[in-house]
């Protein structure tokens, strides 16, 4: 019986002492939300492969290890700074706690960035209007876990009509073995406003667990470009969910780069309103025994929505990739225009990808397409490069790099693009472009 799961029980036991350190203890509405979440977690523990949305991803490490919050002793600043974007404001979370000392957030108009823990103390009514608006514990039990355990996060509020030129980077850093970092970010982009946010996840090469959720509320004709660069340490467990509610005519573009971690799962879910646009791009690159799972859901609830989804996977050695892409077109969502594409490259005979596009269309006047491919590098392409003097290993790297680079090319932020190119070149060494 899952309810008796050893690890869920251990987490619940640890929660009794942990709870005093969590923010918002005096807020009845939050206590109720946390209480319900805890109840759901107590009943079923972490999601299991018996659940359809989790059938390819077993959370066995989470079920065997009890990760716990750790206060960071020290942060390697050179390492941290090497992931900072120069042309961006930067909010830093260390082991899941906001660090004002490491963050650079001054001199910014039209946008307010706050630590969730501070906002819960200073102005909880604001948080109450946002928290739980885009996702609830009913989604699955990692959301419930996050609801019960979140310790901090970043709240971004963009005032109506503001065009924010400077992007915001949210840098998640884990510095200690066995650490548990549970964060909740809330992004509210009000009507006609426009902002770019970049999430970067880094951590030491030890086992730890990041469970980060973003709730995103986009106003009418608002525009958010959100990029996720997941470069967790090689032994890390990572769950990152982004849940979006789009108002009419809003535009949401997401770039999901899953490169790190031992086991990492991303949820990217968006609910569209009338004439909203949603673009989901993704690249997962795994080797060794990495397991990278990407779960997307685009819900066309109203007419005239547009969605474009393109994910690519590169799997080497014994790595496993998962792409689940679900598009729902409701009965009244006429004139929906939706495309989904997932292309995968297997570099070894032991690598595996599970890809599952799901289209659920209840309207009759829509344009929806999807396509999936799984393949290997073509021998004729490798030979063509060899015939021009390039050795076989480099030829394979060039071709793999080119395959992956198509997704990097879709990123407009030049600084972010060059950071990603660097990461790809480390994995597939070849002459840089």
């Amino acid at each position, binding site marked *: 019986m899952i309810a008796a799961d050893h690890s869920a029980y251990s987490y619940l036991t640890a929660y009794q002492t942990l709870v005093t350190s969590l923010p918002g203890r005096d807020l009845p509405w939050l206590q109720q939300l946390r209480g319900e979440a805890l109840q759901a977690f107590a009943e079923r523990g972490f999601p299991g492969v018996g659940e359809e949305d989790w059938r390819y991803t077993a959370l066995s490490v989470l079920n065997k290890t009890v990760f716990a919050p750790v206060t960071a002793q020290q942060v390697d600043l050179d390492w941290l700074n090497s992931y900072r974007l120069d042309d961006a404001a930067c909010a830093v979370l260390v082991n899941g706690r906001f660090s004002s000392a490491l963050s650079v957030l001054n001199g910014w108009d039209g946008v307010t960035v706050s630590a969730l823990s501070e906002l819960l103390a200073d102005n909880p009514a604001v948080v109450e209007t946002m928290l739980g608006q885009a996702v609830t514990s009913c989604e699955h039990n990692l959301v419930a876990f996050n609801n019960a355990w979140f310790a901090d996060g970043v709240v971004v509020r963009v005032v109506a009509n503001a065009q924010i030129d400077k992007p915001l980077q949210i840098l998640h850093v884990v510095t200690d073995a066995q650490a548990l970092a549970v964060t909740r970010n809330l992004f509210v982009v009000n009507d006609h406003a426009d902002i770019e946010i970049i999430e970067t996840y880094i951590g030491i090469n030890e086992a730890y667990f990041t469970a980060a959720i973003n709730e995103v509320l986009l106003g009418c004709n608002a525009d958010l470009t959100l990029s996720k660069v997941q470069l967790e340490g090689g032994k890390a467990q990572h769950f990152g969910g982004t849940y979006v509610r789009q108002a009419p005519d809003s535009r949401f573009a997401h770039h999901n780069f899953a490169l790190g971690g031992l086991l990492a799962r991303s949820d990217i879910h968006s609910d569209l309103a009338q004439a909203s646009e949603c673009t989901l791009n993704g690249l997962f690159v795994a080797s060794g025994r990495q397991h990278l799972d990407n779960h997307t859901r685009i819900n066309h609830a109203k007419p005239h929505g547009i969605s474009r989804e393109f994910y690519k996977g590169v799997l080497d050695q014994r790595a496993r990739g998962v792409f689940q892409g679900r598009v729902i077109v409701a009965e009244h969502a006429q004139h929906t225009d939706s495309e989904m594409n997932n292309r995968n490259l297997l570099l070894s005979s032991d690598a595996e990808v599970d890809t599952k596009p799901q289209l659920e269309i209840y309207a009759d006047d829509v344009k929806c397409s999807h396509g999936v491919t799984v393949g290997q590098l073509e021998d004729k392409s490798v030979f063509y490069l060899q015939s021009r003097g390039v050795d076989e290993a480099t030829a394979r790297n060039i*071709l793999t790099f080119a395959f992956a680079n198509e997704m990097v090319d879709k990123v407009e932020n030049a600084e972010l693009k060059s950071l990603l190119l660097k990461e790809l070149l480390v994995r597939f060494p070849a002459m840089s472009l």
Partner: protein
Amino acid sequence: MTKRMLSIKNLHVSINDKAILKGLTLDINPGEVHAVMGPNGAGKSTLSHVLSGKPGYTVTEGSVSYNGKDLLDMDPEIRAREGVFLAFQYPVEIPGVSNIYLLKAALNAMRKHKGLPEVDAMDFLTLVKGKVKLLQMDEKFLYRAVNEGFSGGEKKRNEILQAAVLEPNLCILDETDSGLDIDALRIVAEGVNSLRSPERSFLMITHYQRLLDYIKPDVVHVLADGRIVKSGGPALALELEEKGYGWLEGQAA
């Protein structure tokens, strides 16, 4: 006696145990242009593939010496770095890799092989742009993905552009005339002719005499059933055009 550039002796090659080349012998001296003609299925493309090191072919007998070295012993990229260039009959499309990237990677691989430093970025651009002009190509081609969406003529011109940049010693043209209209054929032929030099040799593999109107060979060979069955001067090609290949098939060299 001049030093041979390429010396193929009694070459036997099979694919999946099926014999394709059955004792082919051919010598090429520096600066010479040789045409190998023959009917479909004679083994023309097999010859070009086996010389460039394409996997899937088994040499069961014979030898190929290139500038005194055993060519068959070299990996494909080493052959390329040693100056053997194959212009493909069907150039491969490589999405995501720009032409200029491939040219630079290839040129630097050659230079490294020769113990030379990487090419200077400005020098490289000047060199490549000069060659682009020579082949009457648009500079935009440099920044497009290798052969992706190119027309047949553009692909063949692109092959010759690569040869022009890499300056090989032995240039193998595999059915370079196939799929070209007359204007494209002329431009490609002019490109090839501009590469002719006393040190550079060509092995042209073609089904038709048409190409030889534009690129004058020194020697013409007829390949039939895996062997060279007849060799001669340029006049042989005209004779073939008139009589076809039937009268030569089954004949020993």
